[in-house]
């Protein structure tokens, strides 16, 4: 069963990864994306994520469908945290179960790259001397 969720609660990565495992699979690759303290030398104190929630869920489901067409994978889980996050807290989990690990690695990398470009979620970083909406996400 696939899993697409937005939540303001802390994400249990291990539980998310296990929720998607079907019997035919032999490998799950899970990305744990978390709040980075230093970006290009500038210190972040905390950040806030905002989403266009219904559209974000639709876009996550579309990415799941595209990933399944491109890679030999079984189930996909994507959970994105919203609201205020402290340094080190998990902001996004992308977990992919596949019969073989190679497809799971490739699909997981493809999914997070696409998520950063298409899913309508925005990040606002707060610093000691102000704040900024983040606009240039890393490739």
């Amino acid at each position, binding site marked *: 069963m696939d899993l697409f969720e937005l939540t303001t609660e802390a994400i249990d990565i291990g539980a998310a990864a296990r929720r998607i495992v079907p019997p035919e699979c032999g490998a799950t690759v899970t990305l744990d*994306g978390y709040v980075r303290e230093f970006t290009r030398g500038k210190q972040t104190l905390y950040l806030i*994520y*905002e*989403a*266009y929630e*219904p*559209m*974000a869920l*639709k876009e996550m489901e579309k990415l799941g469908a595209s990933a399944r067409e491109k890679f030999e994978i079984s189930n996909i889980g994507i959970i*994105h945290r919203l609201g205020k996050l402290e340094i080190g807290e998990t*902001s*996004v989990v992308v977990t992919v179960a596949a019969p073989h690990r190679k497809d799971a690695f490739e699909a997981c990398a493809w999914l*997070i790259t696409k*998520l*950063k*470009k*298409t*899913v*309508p*979620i*925005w*990040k*606002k970083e707060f610093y000691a001397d102000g704040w900024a*909406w*983040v*606009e240039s*996400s890393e490739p």
Partner: protein
Amino acid sequence: MNSTSIKVNVLFFGAAAELTGKRNEEIAFPAGVNAAGARESVLAAYPLLGERYRGSLLFSLNEEYADGGEVLKDGDELAFFPPVSGG
């Protein structure tokens, strides 16, 4: 409501909400306007938004990315937002 205008529920997210001071607004457009035309009107109505995001403001119609050519209907949901930065 007459036949020459339609009402659209317009949403703003992220920095676009801050620059307009609004998260949503019902806006009347002339009947037949397409999504790109509505985007131009909104950029003109909110100069701060236009200054910052004229070239990059994204938009969706009824929760799907719009390409601009879609003709708006009464009751549609049109959302405007900066380039996304999730992950």
